[in-house]
């Protein structure tokens, strides 16, 4: 099992990178009324066939060849189920995939959010060409991070430079705290 939501994002977004996505959008939102924290990842990668999609929640389905199991999606679905939420995945071949999971905020089995900034900088370092959008929303406000606006500022310096990745990590985490602080009890585990 993965210990927090940010680790699930790190894991699942790598599927989008493998699918050749040029843009990956990660949404985190919590709605005080419905008491759910929702995480979704949307990409414009190669998508999946209807047959593969139908079996993707099965741990014995994988596109990899090094082993016969694929635990990423089943683990996240389990994390949502255990926290009283729901999981869904939609995919259109050659258009992209969108997966979404919700977790009840007050549920004792809800995973903590974890280090979302760290996840962001790792994903960027492993797919520097990909555009990443991180969107956060709660009653406290909204925040949007876009790798394109960082690239505009830094010009010819690669986004994978240590200082830049550190800055991105701190910037995202600061905003995670502003948007989710107080609503979720443990923001940075």
């Amino acid at each position, binding site marked *: 099992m993965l210990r927090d939501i940010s680790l699930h994002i790190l894991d699942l977004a790598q599927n989008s990178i493998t699918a050749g996505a040029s843009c990956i959008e990660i949404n985190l939102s919590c709605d005080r009324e419905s008491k759910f924290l929702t995480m979704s990842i949307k990409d414009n990668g190669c998508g999946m066939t209807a047959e593969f999609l139908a079996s993707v929640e099965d741990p014995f389905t994988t596109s990899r060849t090094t*082993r016969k199991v694929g635990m990423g999606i089943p683990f996240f679905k389990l994390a949502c189920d255990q926290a009283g939420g729901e999981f869904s995945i939609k995919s259109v071949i050659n258009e992209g995939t969108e997966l979404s999971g919700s977790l009840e905020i007050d549920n004792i089995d809800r995973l903590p959010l974890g280090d979302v900034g760290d996840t962001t900088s*790792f994903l960027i370092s492993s797919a520097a060409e990909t555009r990443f959008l991180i969107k956060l929303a709660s009653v406290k406000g909204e925040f949007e991070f876009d790798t394109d606006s*960082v690239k505009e*500022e830094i*010009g010819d310096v*690669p986004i994978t*430079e240590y*200082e830049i990745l550190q800055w991105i990590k701190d910037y995202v985490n600061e905003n995670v705290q502003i948007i989710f602080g107080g609503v979720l009890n443990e923001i940075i585990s």
Partner: protein
Amino acid sequence: MKSLAELKAIKEKAQNDLAMRNAHNGTRIVVGMATCGIAAGARPVMNAFMDEIQKRNITHATVAMTGCIGMCRLEPIVEVIDKEGNKVTYVKMDADKAVRVVTEHIVNGNIVTEYTIGAVQE
């Protein structure tokens, strides 16, 4: 409160650093970060490598992440590949072991034999 404008200052510093570095011809440190690696704790290992390399101002090594290396029970797995393509595979890593690998292997060129797959598999 951070703002995008701060990137200007970071950019200038990074440009100076880049001029001194020749990363592409150096050693590559590859951390396995698929579901198995993440669950076993690959993230602190990756962070330890990145921080240590930065702290020691090492210019001949880069850190990257990869998918499943194929031996999930031995995760977190780290491969160190030198510029000739020779590969050393370290298994069951943690942050402290990562620091030691940087000091002994990356800086001084001595493989930390006890953490390698050959030693652990016995």
